[in-house]
């Protein structure tokens, strides 16, 4: 069977070789990079612009951004027909292609995030090393911890006030550089689509900007969701009075509750701000297309207003944007409402990616026929796994697993800042 045939349903006249070649994994790719970029921008709001109220969530979202980073590449690898040659993009980049710079942009961004985290955690790392060294008797876990943290410290053991001040400066500089790079990383994903002149739905210079705004929206939303879940787990642990590791001080449930709601309220404000910006741009694009009504509009109109109406206007704009907007703007925000709102926002941004990627292939380049994407559910072959529901679920769950692992080494709560 030809690649794409298993999940493409053609209607009317479609060129013989046309199938939905970019499927669920290419929906996941901008979604995941968006989450990475958004999480990073959220953490930078504190580090660069000094939004003090975001201090608690800043460290959290920075580490989450690190956990999301490798996952941004996963859907691409799952999508490539020759994944073992994926490295060729780095080895022989062909710079007229929008994808060619991906390796460079991605690595640059990865290095910025990694080094920023290192500076943020240096004090913690060094203190842990000191603490472990001071022990006369070390068990196997402690010995391996000592090795791990010694390596992570990179030999920079200076904890003098001047050194810590330098750390602080480095963090704000890196976060400052990080913002444009994060926006570039994601705007660039938008450019990959926006520059495909063969695709009438994708080709718009607004695409990168729309992608950046929705990226920040989804990144902040995911950070809030994960933050709430983590706080709930901490509250639960706190009520059970379980023995928590030495680096975690044990706050009371009330303390946690008040901290949680104040952090969530302020973060939601930024979320709403970017949400408004994202919707404005998306609507501008839609209005512009309707008004200019160029050759492709006939078929696009049928996709947007008829075939994909539910996906675009009900799921994306309605449930994904309007409902959360109302939820957030109603007075007296509660944790539960914030959680529902942010989950809806995440769904809305996912639908936006879906409507762009799949919607862009819902019509033939002949403008005379349609293609429908049937998401493969049961993974009866490797291809159907990779480009189906379970492949997408693998991509979604990985960052949480990574986040768990990373926080075993670099805890996000109850740690004194280097700065």
């Amino acid at each position, binding site marked *: *069977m*030809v*690649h*794409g*045939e298993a999940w493409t*349903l*053609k*209607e*009317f*006249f*479609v*060129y*013989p*070789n*046309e*199938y939905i*070649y*970019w499927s669920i994994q290419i929906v996941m790719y901008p979604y995941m990079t968006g989450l990475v970029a958004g999480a990073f921008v959220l953490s930078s709001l504190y580090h660069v612009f000094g939004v003090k109220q975001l201090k608690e969530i800043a460290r959290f979202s920075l580490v989450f951004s690190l956990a999301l980073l490798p996952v941004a590449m996963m859907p*691409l690898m799952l*999508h*490539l*027909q*020759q*994944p073992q*040659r*994926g490295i*060729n*993009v780095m*080895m*022989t*980049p*062909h*710079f*007229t*292609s*929008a*994808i*060619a710079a*991906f390796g460079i942009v991605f690595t640059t961004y990865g290095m910025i995030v990694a080094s920023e985290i290192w500076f943020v955690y240096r004090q913690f790392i060094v203190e842990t090393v000191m603490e472990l060294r001071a022990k006369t008797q070390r068990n196997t876990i402690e010995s391996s911890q000592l090795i791990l943290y010694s390596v992570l410290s990179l*030999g920079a053991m200076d904890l003098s006030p001047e050194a810590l001040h330098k750390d602080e400066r480095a963090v704000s500089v890196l976060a400052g550089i990080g913002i444009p790079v994060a926006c570039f990383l994601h705007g660039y994903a938008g450019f*990959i689509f926006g520059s*495909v*002149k*063969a*695709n009438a739905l994708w080709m718009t210079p607004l695409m990168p900007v729309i992608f950046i705004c929705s990226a920040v929206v989804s990144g902040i939303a995911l950070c809030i969701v994960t933050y709430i879940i983590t706080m709930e787990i901490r509250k639960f642990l706190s009520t059970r009075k379980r023995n928590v590791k030495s680096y975690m001080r044990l706050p009371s449930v009330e303390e946690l509750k008040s901290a949680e709601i104040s952090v969530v309220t302020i973060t939601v404000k930024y979320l709403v701000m970017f949400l408004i910006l994202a919707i404005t741009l998306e609507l501008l694009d839609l209005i512009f297309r309707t008004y200019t009504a160029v*050759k492709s509009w006939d078929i696009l109109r049928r996709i947007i207003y008829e075939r994909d109406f539910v996906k675009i206007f009900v799921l994306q704009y309605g449930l994904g944007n309007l409902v959360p907007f109302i939820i957030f703007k109603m007075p007296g925000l509660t944790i539960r409402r914030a959680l529902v709102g942010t989950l809806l926002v995440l769904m809305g941004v996912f639908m936006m990616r879906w409507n762009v990627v799949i919607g862009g292939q819902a019509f*033939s*380049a*002949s*403008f*005379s*026929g349609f293609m*429908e994407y049937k998401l493969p559910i049961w993974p009866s072959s490797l291809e159907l796994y990779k480009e189906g529901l379970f492949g997408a679920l693998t991509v979604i769950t990985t960052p949480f697993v990574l986040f768990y692992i990373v926080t075993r080494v670099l805890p996000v709560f109850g740690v004194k800042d280097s700065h």
Partner: protein
Amino acid sequence: MMNRREFCKKSMIIAGGIALPLTALEIFNPKRLRAEKDGKGNVRWVFLVDIHKCVGCGLCVKACKIENDVNWDANVTRTWVERYVVTKDGHTYIDSPKGARDGFTTQKIDQAHAGLKDVNPDDITKGYFVPKLCNHCENPPCVQVCPVGATYQTKEGVVLVDRSWCIGCGYCVMGCPYGVRYFHPELHVAEKCTLCYHRLCQGMKTACVDACPFGARRVGNIRDPEDPVTKIITTEQVNVLKEEFGTKPQVFYLGYSMEVK
């Protein structure tokens, strides 16, 4: 004695220093640039389709599949023929069952999932067949978007794919406005019409040109003013597909009608 910090600094400078000139060589390799762009050799292959002469027999598609070892039953094809049926009410029905590998065996129009459309012959105002293949564009978007340079243009203007280097990202497939590209069902790399480059290089014509009993398909060298194809293109009313994309297609059509997609 060099300390660790100095060692790290120096090795980074050396690595960076070596990498920079190497990348410059890679980017500005003049040979490669010329191969990718417009090499002014004395051969530039172009293709001419005479829509008036095509009867939709599909022999060209058959010949192409055999010559280029394109999987016989796979629903992809390097070249295909489209049937256009225009009715009195202004509707245009188009189909290309199996790329017209077996020709058009029924009067019913294949609307894929929407079923077979029966058109009353009395309602038809015009009908014709349009053969399609890669346009071997002068400004090929597929070559532009390939992230690893696996697809390239030969000095004779033919666009080819290096099967050993393609990563299978599908960007070229999405970038082609003509839908001529697909994934090879067995090799899992981008696949397309090669204009029978292996035959042209040996002085032969493409398989589809040789197979066409009506002379609807012709291949020629636009840089040779004496070439009969060049003469037609330069003196008669020819058109190209989707000119608005700026790809400068090099497959020319005689008898092109506005319904052609």
